């Protein structure tokens, strides 16, 4: 992996003249986890898709810059709520999808390391339909890591999982994505409180930054400061809904 840069997105987006989000400035610190928390329809996924240069259906007026001046969209790996595993391909073929789509040869040593770290060694030849939700999401995480990109964009990556699997996946993701610049888009205050080195609550009016607890991520689910942060975030979200 090349050095992970910091990223700044500045600007506003609109859909057919109707404002999606007001002018905002979002900074992702290099090598850190940034959580973008918000309700449905505030445009948080649009922010992530703009960074990935994916189609959004919105007109964006602004700039996206990396601290090292190089491009952003060609240095990202993307993981969504839907694991996006190809149902006809084995676990191995799914993890190495990126190399095949670029006509490259997969790095076998890297694949082997990832299989061990994600606990997928025994599932190599299985198809996604034979896996549990948590296992599928581990395959998606391994596929994301196989790309070995310095910037990781996670769009509600664990929200389809049950609570205990979600917590385990959060721990694993923090461990495996260490050193990369990570953006997590989420609607779950608990997830933001556990994972964010920086937390931003997104509203139609713009961004509100919330200072996370000073402890290291992933924060313990039962720690008082995590729970306090979670309820602060929830109150912020509820205040906006009212």
């Amino acid at each position: 992996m090349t050095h992970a840069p910091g990223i700044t997105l500045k600007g506003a987006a609109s859909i057919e003249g109707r404002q999606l989000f007001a002018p905002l400035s979002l900074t992702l610190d290099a090598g850190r986890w940034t959580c973008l928390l918000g309700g449905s329809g505030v445009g948080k996924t649009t922010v992530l898709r703009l960074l990935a240069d994916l189609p959004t259906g919105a007109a964006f007026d602004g700039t996206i810059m990396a601290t090292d001046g190089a491009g952003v969209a060609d240095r990202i790996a993307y993981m969504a709520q839907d694991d996006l595993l190809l149902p006809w391909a084995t676990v191995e073929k799914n993890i190495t999808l990126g190399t095949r789509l670029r006509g490259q040869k997969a790095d076998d040593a890297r694949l082997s390391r990832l299989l061990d770290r994600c606990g997928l060694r025994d599932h190599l030849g299985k198809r996604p339909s034979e896996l549990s939700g948590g296992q599928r999401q581990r395959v998606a995480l391994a596929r994301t890591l196989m790309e070995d990109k310095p910037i990781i964009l996670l769009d509600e990556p664990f929200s389809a999982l049950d609570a205990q699997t979600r917590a385990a996946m959060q721990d694993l993701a923090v461990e495996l994505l260490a050193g990369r610049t990570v953006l997590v888009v989420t609607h779950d205050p608990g997830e933001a409180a556990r994972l964010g080195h920086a937390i931003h609550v997104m509203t139609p009016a713009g961004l509100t930054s919330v200072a996370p607890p000073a402890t290291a991520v992933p924060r313990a689910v039962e720690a008082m400061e995590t729970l306090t942060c979670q309820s602060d975030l929830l109150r912020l979200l509820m205040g906006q809904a009212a």
Partner: protein
Amino acid sequence: MKILPAVAATLFALAVWQTIVSLTELPRFILPGPMLVAETWWTNRAVIAEHTLVTAQEVLLGLAIGTALGIFTALQLATSKTARLLVQPILVFTQALPVFALAPILTLWLGYGLWSKIAMAVLIIYFPVTSAFFDGLMRTPPGYLDLAKTMQASPSRVLWHIRVPAALPSLGAGVRLAAVYAPIGAVIGEWVGASKGLGYLMLLANGRAKTDLMFAAMLTLGVLSVLLYVVISKLTKSLGDRET
């Protein structure tokens, strides 16, 4: 399809048929009973087999060529916007035409032999195959395409590794439909002008008031079609399984 209920229903239908014929004492050239049809089938088995082989050949070749052309067209349409703009309206328009009306012309162009029948079968199945596969190719789950884009994939590799495999179940559905249509196409071709084939035999038997032979040939065609459908279903099922 469960075998036992199907067999029971068939036997019941045959019994009803035989009963009607026995009770009404209809002349055999109006409606022969199943017993008589079976008897005729057995005594004429060599003739029927000979004509069946010809029709089967036409159907299989028509199915293979029509499917290949359909796959090729769908790939072209899916990868080229220009092709879509130019070809799609023509393709839809041709479906508004009664292709059966072309059968005499095809005989004129391609002669009395196999090829005019194969061409008819191809004409009938080309559109369902093209349309089913093309729809599948255009309905790739957008999430896969997003993922591919973030992986800097080239369009041809996305087509080969994602869009085509994702569209295979749709192609399977199209080919299954084609398996049902292909025998109809071949028989229409044979009706217009042929000296061999089950369609020809049916026409011949009808003209000579050998209604029992007509039924025997028709039922043979039905069995041939069902067999073809079952085989094609089995072959294409593996495509569909990959979807789950």
